[in-house]
């Protein structure tokens, strides 16, 4: 598969090929605990990560929790 460019948390990222969300998080070295993922504006449930393929031009948000008031 061809290399693709996606946007993760506002940053452009080049990938060698399309990946599923599980592999993408592993590739980004993001701990999976207590994170949530949005693909093109829609939340993707954790159980759907393995079947969800990230393609050219996709916009992804990966969030976790931080201190706040």
């Amino acid at each position: 598969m061809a290399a693709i460019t996606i946007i993760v948390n506002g940053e452009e990222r080049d990938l060698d090929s399309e990946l599923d969300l599980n592999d993408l998080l592993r590739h980004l070295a993001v701990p999976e605990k207590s994170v949530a993922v949005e693909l093109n504006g829609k939340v993707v449930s954790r159980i759907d990560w393995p079947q969800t393929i990230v393609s050219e031009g996709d916009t992804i948000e990966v969030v976790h929790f931080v201190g706040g008031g």
Partner: protein
Amino acid sequence: MADSFHLAGTTFESRLIIGTGKYRSYDEMKAAHAASGSEMVTVAVNRVPLDGSSESFLDHLDPKMKILPNTAGCYDADHAVRTARLAREALDTEWIKLEVIGDQVTLLPDNEQTLEAAKVLVKEGFVVLPYFTDDLIMAKKLLDAGCPAVMPLAAPIGSGMGVQNPANLRILREQLPDATIIVDAGVGVPSDAAIAMELGADAILMNTAIAESRDPAQMATAMKLAVEAGRLAFLSGRMPKRLYASASSPIEGAIK
């Protein structure tokens, strides 16, 4: 104790809800949380850093505490709704402190966008706790939309100005006797917390007043006591204010 705080089917013994921001260290935060007696803490949703530096903030919270994610940093209904959905997915909780900010300098809430987001989120099954300005009509609209409580500010977020709006908080209490009112933002010192509770708030949410104090654990204890004192005072009913004195000792029988 009989005077528990009931919110959306959950019972709390503490009427103090605290934040997790601005602490100088995790140890200070943990000590403050423990001292506060609080049973619910709020956390923010944020992008995971992609430089590998991410760590699990939630590990630093007492697992007995209920976690209330918030939509801080959102400036329109759409972002707040998306943030709430992400928080629900990550934490498996329906509860959300809805915060839609209208202006970066004052961090005052955008009531219109807050209401719009609240309507969407309630329909999706969220327990929506909205931060808003102390407006009675907006409070009614938020409650009508299905919010189980409303969270008026007492002063701008992080300002520590104290209760700037006692009249409006009183109006909210008197006109909405059955509504759950949580004062969110503005408390600087324990007397502010006591005043808000004396005015009839059901609970108070605060962060900076504890986190930015020199001794957060000690300040948390002071806030706990102030919230309890204010609550007891509200339940006891204050004496009427009088312009002139009213003698406490008998006037009859004083020696001449």
